[in-house]
């Protein structure tokens, strides 16, 4: 009996030691990550899948591309997947050029080679566009489902093994197709880009409904609102109030800036076109916050009537604000960036 036990005992002792060393090793890495002000590529052990939703034209492609650019500068291997039939998500990463989309290739009926749908952009960012039908024809939602399934089938993600994947998705979540990136097994974290306009917040609220639905079946969870096109303090207040009402958090605010418009006209991200600008730094800060933000939760979307009542509650305040604005019009305009310095601490405090 003892003869049998001895080798087993010695094996288990070895195993315990091994576990100890592995744990210590890992713990060091985590400690590093907590202390480090900058990012450590090595600590990312799993692909970070992030979906960025927002109402059409609200600036989600601009924001996504700048975040991708900022993360690639930090040494991450980033893949940006545009999920919009317009297929212009990655334009500014590719010198303003459209790339052939997954669905274009599928439509051609020919065998699809990986390099035909994954295109390298600024700083080695992998650009993919799902594409879609002509406006008014076919089913764009099904297009997105098919394209994402095709990426899985072709094992594109495994082949390129990016550290971070950013899905840039048309944001009203009008049908199941546009909810594809938040279903189980695609993205884990969702952000929404929104201005303080009611329709934009309405789209965000719809997204919250989608997240709430899929959260029960292992879908993606919410990580924060990115306030975009912020001109005035009141814009920020509106978004903050919306976040408070929907039990959501704010990942950051991005002011409206001419630098962005200029860069886009050149077919570039702000980070590429004007790397030393304040706006580029602002996008870098936002990217850092997003990558260090582990918070994931289910927001509490407002019902249709609640949302309407909430929007009405802002009506009087906006009227008053506009009156004040008219009085101030004669005064010289301040640079918007002066007001908007990122407040990482206050934003962090809100993250659950």
């Amino acid at each position, binding site marked *: 009996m003892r003869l049998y036990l001895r080798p087993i005992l010695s094996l288990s002792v070895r195993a315990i030691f091994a576990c100890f060393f592995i744990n210590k090793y890992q713990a060091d890495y985590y400690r590093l990550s907590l202390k480090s002000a900058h990012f450590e590529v090595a600590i990312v052990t799993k692909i970070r899948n992030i979906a960025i939703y927002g109402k059409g034209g609200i600036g989600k492609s601009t924001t996504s591309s700048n975040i991708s650019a900022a993360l690639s500068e930090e040494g991450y291997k980033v893949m940006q997947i545009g999920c919009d039939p317009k297929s212009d998500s990655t334009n500014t990463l590719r010198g303003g050029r459209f790339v052939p989309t997954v*669905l274009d290739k*599928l*439509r051609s*009926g020919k065998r699809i080679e990986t390099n035909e749908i994954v295109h390298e952009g600024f700083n080695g960012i992998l650009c993919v566009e799902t594409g*879609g*039908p*002509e406006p*008014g*024809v*076919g*089913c*764009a939602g*099904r*297009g997105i489902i*098919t394209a994402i399934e095709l990426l899985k089938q072709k094992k594109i993600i495994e082949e390129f093994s990016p550290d971070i994947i950013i899905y840039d998705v048309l944001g009203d979540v009008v049908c199941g197709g546009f909810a594809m990136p938040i279903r189980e097994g695609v993205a884990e974290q969702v952000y929404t880009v929104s201005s303080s306009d009611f329709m934009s917040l309405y789209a965000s609220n719809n997204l919250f409904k989608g997240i709430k639905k899929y959260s029960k079946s292992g879908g993606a969870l919410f990580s924060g609102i990115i306030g975009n096109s912020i001109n005035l303090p009141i814009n920020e207040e509106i978004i903050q109030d919306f976040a408070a009402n929907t039990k959501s958090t704010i990942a950051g605010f991005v002011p409206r800036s001419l630098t962005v418009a200029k860069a886009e006209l050149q077919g570039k991200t702000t980070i590429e076109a004007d790397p030393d600008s304040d706006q580029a730094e602002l996008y870098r800060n936002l990217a850092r916050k997003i990558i260090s933000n582990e918070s994931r939760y289910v927001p509490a979307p407002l019902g249709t009537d609640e949302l309407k009542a909430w929007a009405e509650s802002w009506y009087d305040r906006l009227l008053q604000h506009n009156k004040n604005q008219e009085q101030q019009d004669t005064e010289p305009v301040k640079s918007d960036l002066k007001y908007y310095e990122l407040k990482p601490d206050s934003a962090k405090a809100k993250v659950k």
Partner: protein
Amino acid sequence: MTSNNSEASVISEPKYPEVMEAPRYSCALGGAISTALGIFGTVPILHSGAGCGQAHLNGQAYGCGENAGGPQGGTSTPCSCLVEEHVIFGGENKLRNLIQSSIELMDGDLYAVISGCVPALTGDDVESVVKEFKEKANIISIKTAGFIGNSYKGYELFFLSTIDQLLKPLPVKKGRINIFGVVPYQHLFWKGDLKVLKGTLQRLGIEANIILREFNGLANLLEIPAAELNVVLSPWNGHEIAKSLQEKFGTSYLTFPGVPVGPKQTSNFLLQLAGRLNIPEEKVQEIIEEEERIAYRFIEYLGDVHILGLPHPYFAVVADSGTAIGVTQFLANEMGYLPETVIITDNPPQEARAEIIHQLSVNIESIFKPDIIFESDSHKIRLKLRDRSFLVLLASSLEKFIAADLGATVHLSVSFPSFDRLILERSYAGFGGGLNLMEDILSKTVAPL
């Protein structure tokens, strides 16, 4: 649902209608294909997945007394066979090419573009594609997303689309009627019943446009507005068609609860019809007398088998409302059979159910009134036939083995689906229809050798 009539006990709705085993109909697209195939000379062009046409052949056509699809149906049906590419990018181009080649390759008087679920969801503009071919051929489009209803709905949609897209006002011909409510490939005896009714009505001087099963199908369709009266042989199906024709062409309509089976129902039908068409009653009575004399003289031949072999048995019916009313009333009112239960399988709308219950209770002359159950689920039908005592089961072929388990019970397929008999021109309609029905029931039990 509870009946107002205390004598009939009616069992309530199924609790889980979203789950159904082997329903007794196909989808709206199935009904529209059936109708197109029933109107000879019509080429159905399916704008759907390839499975829709195949399912029609296997489910609807074979289920209707093992019938094939005919020269334009079955595996010869032109179909756009939509795949994922068409879902995403739209299937209009493929449909355009399909219509073009179908017109070139398939001989037909009328082309019916029947679109299914996929183009309905992706929003293909089928109508504008069809419009491009209006100069080249007689062509109509029928939007029958399968999910909008069952075969009965598809039948109605076919005619409603025809009324909208094809029919023009015509001068009314005296003594001409259209017959609706008999859904081809769904009503098992559509070919035979319509032929018999047309012949019977001819004796009264009524020219019946039965539309289906005749070689001049398109001409029949185009002449629909020329009718003096539209007759609908169903307690609910086809009523929409008659209403639409009344709105558009001012034609009034008469509904009858089903295809009349045997002398009593047929006489009643003729009297009602003659009343509406102002045909002298004496003339009708004369024909009724003549026909009844033949029918009852022949029924005497089965007298001994009836009395010695299967005297006044309890019977159960599982059928669509029209067939159920016709068969139950004939057996109860003319043969002295005792109705145990009637299960209505065609899922009639709520507003039509009171009339169906009335027909199956008040209009049953026997003191035994059947339990009336509205149920389309084959599994629940099986459960509801348990613990009942009947010697004759007139149902679909899905109930064949229920009867076999009961031992002595005679089973005859009279309703959809019937895979266990071949039905070409068999008919239970008209004065002689009851004889045919008795022939089929008693042949199953008459003697072992």
